[in-house]
């Protein structure tokens, strides 16, 4: 019985934390390349270019949505944008890994008999 109560409490806490996370509010400080960023209007799902949305001037308050998207309201309507298309307040700068090298070339006698993701081998 105790175990069941503990499980229920644990599940409830997870759900609560999930709800809090889902409702986390952030501040969009910039839409990167607004000419080429699509916004999805909810609930009809129509796509609009960010630059075509009249009067949209960051900063804008937004809430995190599933699949790494952000939702914000503008003139009473809700829009969704990809997280990667905007800059947030207090966003951590991208750390570039300067150590790893790009495998631009391979040795002439290298051979390969399968392709990534193909799931099957093919003999050369």
């Amino acid at each position, binding site marked *: 019985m105790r175990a069941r109560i503990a499980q229920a409490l644990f599940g409830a806490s997870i759900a609560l934390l999930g709800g809090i996370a889902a409702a986390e509010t952030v501040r969009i400080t910039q839409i*990167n*390349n607004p*000419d*080429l*960023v*699509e916004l999805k209007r909810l609930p009809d799902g129509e*796509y609009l*270019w960010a*630059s*075509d949305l009249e009067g949209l001037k960051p900063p804008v308050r937004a809430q995190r949505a599933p*699949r*790494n998207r952000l939702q914000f309201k503008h003139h009473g309507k809700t829009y969704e944008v*990809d*997280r*990667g*298309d905007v*800059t*947030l307040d207090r*966003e*951590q*700068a*991208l*750390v*570039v*890994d300067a150590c*790893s090298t*790009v*495998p*631009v*070339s*391979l*040795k*002439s006698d*290298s051979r*390969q008999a399968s*392709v*990534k*993701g193909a799931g099957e081998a093919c003999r050369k």
Partner: protein
Amino acid sequence: MPRTDSRPYHHIEALLQFIGLVFLGLWVIWADPFGLSTASEKALATDISRSRAYVSPVDPAPITVVSIDYPSIEALHEADAAYLEADDWPLSYRDHARILSRLVSAGDPDDAPVAVFYDIFFERPRAASGDMAALGRVLARISDPPGSGERRPAVYLAGGGVQMPLSAESFDLLGGRGSMLATAAWQDHGDYYPLWAPLRPDDDASPLPATGPSAALALYRHLCPAQGKDCDWLEDGGAMSLQWVMRDDPACSDRWTHLPGYVIKTVLRYAGAGDPPGAADPHCMPFHQVRLQDLFAMPAGGLRPPHLPKGAPYVVLVGAVMPSLNDYHDTPLYEKVAGVYLHAMAVENLNRMDSDFLREQNIRGVSSVLWVLIALFVCLRRHRARRRTAPASAGPAAPPEPTFRDIAGRRLRALGSRAGWVLLMIVLITLIYLFCYSVLDIALEGWLFMIGLVSLLLFSKDEPTDRPDP
């Protein structure tokens, strides 16, 4: 008074020899038995190309190559800004759209490239990668920007080729504009890089255009006029024999430190000792090389090659650089390089040499005529020698039996003479090859085998030896 051969069958014998040699030569030229000509010419072209790269390094080209590598994908996915949805290859269509947006949005229009080749082949819509139409909308927006007067780079996608055409579904979802496709796969050109190639089989009813420019030509058609050059020749077509070059940089191509070592290694290799010379450092390619993660971290204008003044035109190529994708190609200088660099080197060749790029030219006809002349020359020479020597053997006063010393001396002299001829032919044919390669911009076909054939002629049994026939 010259002695003459009284035996008429010698004429017939000489004629038959001539016909036999002509047929032998034509067979080697046209049939390339055992791939001997192809293999030997490729080996020589590789060595010439390597030597040229060290002897004649080039200036950096107005070309930037962006590599989509696995560490970049991982870093951009895990970044606080979550620039990429995908954490591995293949990326989602929205990821591709975001990369393209970054490429064409340089801030200051003077910093933007004139054209971009996105070397990713969207063969058919892939459900797991999202909605391809979203990428199509961004491409259409780049092609037709809002407002007036704004100049955006022309964007080309890998359009596949005759053996792997783009599907009609993809073509439609990506905007249905044939002008955005560059041929990225071809056949029947060997190691050459065609300027134009089919985008689909002739009998394919797909809406794709029948042919398309190669990636290099598509980009250079923008770069050439932007540089103020005469570009009328660009529509001529043809195929390029790519010259793999390196940047003029002491760390890469210091001829006084690199070349002697290279020559010694090559000579040793031909003598049967020593390993082939190692590959040049791919960082020595004359391009500005950028990783995908740099694209998202760099300030506006960071794509511009550092040596280029602001406002000078340049082009960008983007490609996936991952060994597991199996898109690597043999080169004479850098061993195997990722496919996007093949296109980049072709742009470099066009940009540096314009219409003087090294062309594919089928000169088997010329080779055949030349071979007939060589065979005629050798047969006539042999026949005349026989006519001089034959009566002597038939005369009543035959010379005394030669000593072993005499025979050995004659044989050695004959051998030396023939070896000299063979060496002369090797040098002559190599010089002709070099001349055509360097001055006439022609990569010859079917020439190296002549060294072997001429050797065969010179060492054949009937070559005159200043000795009477037995």
